[in-house]
């Protein structure tokens, strides 16, 4: 790993990516994408299908390696960002297909990979199940989610409840950046509102947030900044106050509204 320390700007960036390009075979999924994320900022990432949104999210969570470009965490260049390194830094991602263990309870899912230990015997770690359930309950409650049964397998729960658990899971570790890939796709109106409120609350703790959504209402309701991807390139990167839905759609599709209307 190469560590280059550069001079710090007036406001420290949590994550900075510069000139990221990613190929899948002959297809260029991302084309010299540069993006900076500030603490506590909510960035709405929008674009048509295949625009490269999920690819960018997977690069920032370390699942994909970019072919060109560099990633900087806290102004330190990271040569190979892998999932472990991203987690250690405090980057978490809630994917569209929720990564939950259906056979485990809600608390066990939230605490997976960071179970409280009661004692050790050589390499064996004895699980403190009572504390695991209590800490899981606390993390879920902190998000304002009410869930009575923390022990039954989560496969018995509804889509909305499962979504909540996946988000609770991610927020436990997301100290710096949390990414949501279509967080409200499986949700009803009331749960969508609750989820958006939750994003605001996470961001207010100084965590940078990236939200991928096809729903522009949600994006405009919750984001500070909107980034539009089209065919792997950033076509718009603007404060939500300086842009309009028409402009966003225009940059997403490449079709000018005004020209069509006139």
């Amino acid at each position, binding site marked *: 790993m190469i560590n280059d320390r550069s001079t710090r700007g007036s406001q420290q960036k949590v994550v900075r990516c510069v000139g990221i390009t990613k190929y899948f075979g002959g297809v260029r999924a991302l084309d010299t994408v540069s993006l900076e994320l500030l603490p506590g900022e909510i960035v709405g990432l929008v674009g048509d299908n295949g625009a490269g949104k999920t690819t960018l999210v997977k690069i920032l969570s370390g699942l994909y390696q970019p072919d060109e470009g560099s990633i900087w965490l806290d102004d330190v260049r990271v040569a190979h960002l892998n999932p472990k390194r991203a987690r250690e830094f405090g980057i978490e991602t809630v*994917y569209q297909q929720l990564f939950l263990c259906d*056979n485990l309870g809600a608390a066990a899912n939230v605490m997976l990979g960071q179970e409280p230990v009661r004692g050790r015997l050589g390499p064996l770690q004895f*699980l403190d199940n009572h504390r695991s359930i209590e800490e899981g309950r606390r993390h879920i409650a902190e998000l304002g989610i009410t869930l009575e049964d923390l022990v039954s397998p989560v496969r018995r729960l509804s889509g909305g409840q499962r979504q909540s658990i996946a988000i609770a899971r991610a927020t436990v570790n997301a100290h710096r950046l949390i990414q949501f890939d279509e967080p409200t796709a499986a949700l*009803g109106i009331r749960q969508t509102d609750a989820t958006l409120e939750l994003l605001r609350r996470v961001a207010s703790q100084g965590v940078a947030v990236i939200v991928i959504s096809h729903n522009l209402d949600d994006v405009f309701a919750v984001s500070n900044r909107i980034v539009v991807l089209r065919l792997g390139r950033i076509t718009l990167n603007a404060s939500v106050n300086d842009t309009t839905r028409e402009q966003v759609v225009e940059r997403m599709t490449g079709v000018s509204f005004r020209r069509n209307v006139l």
Partner: protein
Amino acid sequence: MRVPSPNSSVRESLFGGRNTGLFVTLGLSLLVISLFSPQYLSLDNLRVVALQISFIGIASLGTALLIISGNVDLSIGSQYALCAVAAAMLARTIPAPFAWLAGITLGAILGFLDALMVWRVNISPIIITLGTMTVFRGIALRITNGFGVRGVPKSFSAFGQARILTVPMPVCVLIGLGLLAHIFLHKTVQGRHLFAFGGNKQAAEAAGINSKRLILMNFTFNGALVGISAVLAASRFGTAAPTFGVGFELDVIAAVILGGVAFTGGEGSIVGVLLAVVLLGVINSGLISLGIDPHYAQMVKGAALVVAVTLDQLTQERQERHRKRLAIQERSAIA
């Protein structure tokens, strides 16, 4: 249905999941057998029955852990044969205790080889271990020229024929290892991670659980258990043959599945697996002591497995309908 949760109370770990059904079936079987053949419940006979099931029982512990984590090793029958003949052959030249240890270590190595391939090659472990099953059997046949091992010294039998308080050594080992496996699976973080892996591999990896180490440990541990079982058997009989353990893997997997372990991974308990091992052993020996053609035992064992799995499937479908109702309720609550 109560599903045995990865971490459970004493009551739940004894009676959760399919265990109640297994207890009842076992009790009824013993009742019927002892009505017609009272001497079946004599201490001497029970000792023989326990001895018969202990070899499959020890191996079933490792297979249970493997299947719970979403893996399987079909080569255990061949591992069993290879470890048994290797230990018996070595006993002709090196002191017996070293031969026992060598057999067990060989099991661990064979398991490790399976693990290396499962970990590196992205193909189902069923296919890979189907291949190594043939390879290991071939090695066992080659080194023995296909014959049983002759000229094994008497000292080699000391391990398998030993008794602790009149209980045969294989039974003692099964009880001890069963207890350890239960504690490992239900009381440790590693055990929890096995369940997580069987439940959703991607989720477990995204949670930062080291999949390579888990697979390597799991298969190696399984191989060592097969080695222990094989050395105990060879030592008990005072010799070994390369045809040992043909169909062993199927008996073991049948017991594990009957014991409530989901073949798709993520569910099961050691108590259930041991109950199933005992039940299958009792059906086997009970029918013989009732003077019934032993071929019926085959049919009964197979039927028991099919009935148990069918009942599970029906319960799952009922749960599916229940979830559907929940989802519809949730939707209408929003509207």
